[in-house]
């Protein structure tokens, strides 16, 4: 397995947000992590990429223990996160957002990667030199994903990519997930639209109040109405 979260417990002061959570992702898989608001999904991703240091447990990536490692070092090692609410740099142009995201890439390759992103996300090319603050939500999300892909990650983590997007843009993001999977990329995606994302995922995990309460094949989980009634609430 390329990414393994092993019994990770993460606390915010006295509050325990994750209780010995374990999950894993195999190379080439699309894995969905779903659950209600406040379940600890973002905390889990933050604990994986080193923005938060777990109180106990280990995170292993590509055979190495990466628990609490610096996020920047993890990007260089091949683990990239598209953060919740996108967090693109609004003061920087679209091109500069991508250029910066290529900071771990050799200088000669950076330009080539930027061209690839312009090809993959044609809408970005039309806004190339514009401040990223002028992008719509959907465009900004595409930039956020493009930024993460600049480092050619072995595993891509996506935190709520559809949050706040218009329905047509949600379709674009799901097409993108398909595309990433077709390219053989390894993806762990956190998503509120639980049923839909489980429908396309190879496997899924359901997180609730800091614990994994269900796991299995994506399609199987998507069919379990008991799960949605009890834990997730709607879809």
């Amino acid at each position: 397995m390329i990414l393994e979260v092993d019994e990770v417990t993460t606390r915010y002061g006295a509050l325990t947000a994750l209780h010995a959570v374990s999950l894993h992702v195999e190379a080439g898989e699309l894995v969905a992590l779903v659950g209600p608001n406040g379940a600890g999904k973002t905390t889990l991703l933050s604990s994986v990429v080193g923005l938060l240091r777990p109180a106990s447990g280990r995170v292993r990536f590509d055979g190495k223990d990466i628990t609490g490692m610096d996020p920047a070092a993890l990007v260089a090692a091949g683990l990239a996160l598209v953060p919740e609410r996108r967090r693109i740099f609004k003061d920087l142009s679209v091109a500069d957002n991508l250029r910066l995201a290529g900071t771990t890439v050799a200088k000669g390759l950076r330009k080539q990667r930027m061209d690839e992103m312009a090809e993959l996300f044609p809408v970005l090319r039309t806004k190339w030199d514009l401040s990223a603050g002028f992008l719509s939500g959907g465009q900004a999300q595409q930039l956020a994903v493009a930024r993460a892909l600049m480092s050619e990650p072995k595993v891509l983590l996506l935190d709520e990519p559809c949050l706040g997007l218009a329905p047509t843009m949600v379709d674009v993001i799901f097409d993108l997930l398909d595309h990433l999977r077709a390219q053989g990329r390894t993806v762990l995606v956190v998503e509120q639209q639980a049923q839909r994302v489980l429908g396309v995922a190879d496997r899924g995990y359901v997180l609730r109040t800091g614990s994994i309460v269900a796991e299995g094949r994506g399609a199987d989980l998507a069919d379990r109405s008991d799960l949605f009634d009890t834990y997730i609430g709607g879809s």
Partner: protein
Amino acid sequence: MTDFVQNLIDGLGAGSTYALLAVGVSMLFGVMHLVNFAHGELLTVGAYVIYGMRSKDIPWVATIPVAILSAVVLSMGIEFVAFRRVRTASAFTLLLTSFAIEILSHAAWRIGVSSTPRRYAAPDIAFKAVQWGPFNIEVWDVVSIVVAVACFVATAIMLRTTMFGLSIRAASEDFDAARLMGVRANRVISGAFAFAGLLAGIAGAIWLVRRGQADPRMGSEPLLKAVIAAIIGGLGSLQGAVIGGLALGVAEVFFRSWLPSDLQGLTDSFVFVVIAVLFVVRPQGLFNVQTAERV
């Protein structure tokens, strides 16, 4: 009119020192939400380097680069020894740390050298003036303004075109997001301290060539002005810091020339009243800076 232009040149000369310091202060605030009251100590170290080298008759052309370099090294040293340990602490902790370094620096110079000022002779060029039409222009004022403008242009180019500049801008907007893009926290912060130190070193060199003495507490007053200039411009905004610094210098000179001689000693007070009024009208400063998430 003649007076006006004369005062404007004098004011821009004085203001360029504040502006150079303020850009550094604002940059450090941007990347780590630190209001660095230790930044003025970079002027002090430059002054003692100048005193030490000039007392051995080492020429000015060799002295100035060493003085500037000493500011860069001290700035990076302070970051490494003090601020790196408290990087993720609250802004209040960072502020107190900076005060502690300022006080330690004062004490170190008092104990290590002397509490009385150490004097050195200013070079001839420092007070040389040329008559140009109706204006009496001091050469060093012109040098100050030209050097400062060159620094601002270089800073702007650095921020727009280099990867380091992009990292600084990104980290100022959202530090954690920058780390998620592969920007190394320590590297960008250390780089920001080095760059701010370079600007402070240059500001120091401009100021110190004329000042003619080094004393332990000398850095505090210009730094206070620079912090005020940075706040006037909107903390975190670099063009705001430039404008704030220049405006402060010009305001000082104009007040000094307008005030009757028995009120001259209150120049700073009058300037601060104007600033207080400005903050009532525009509490966020001249330029609006989006508050980024803290480190």
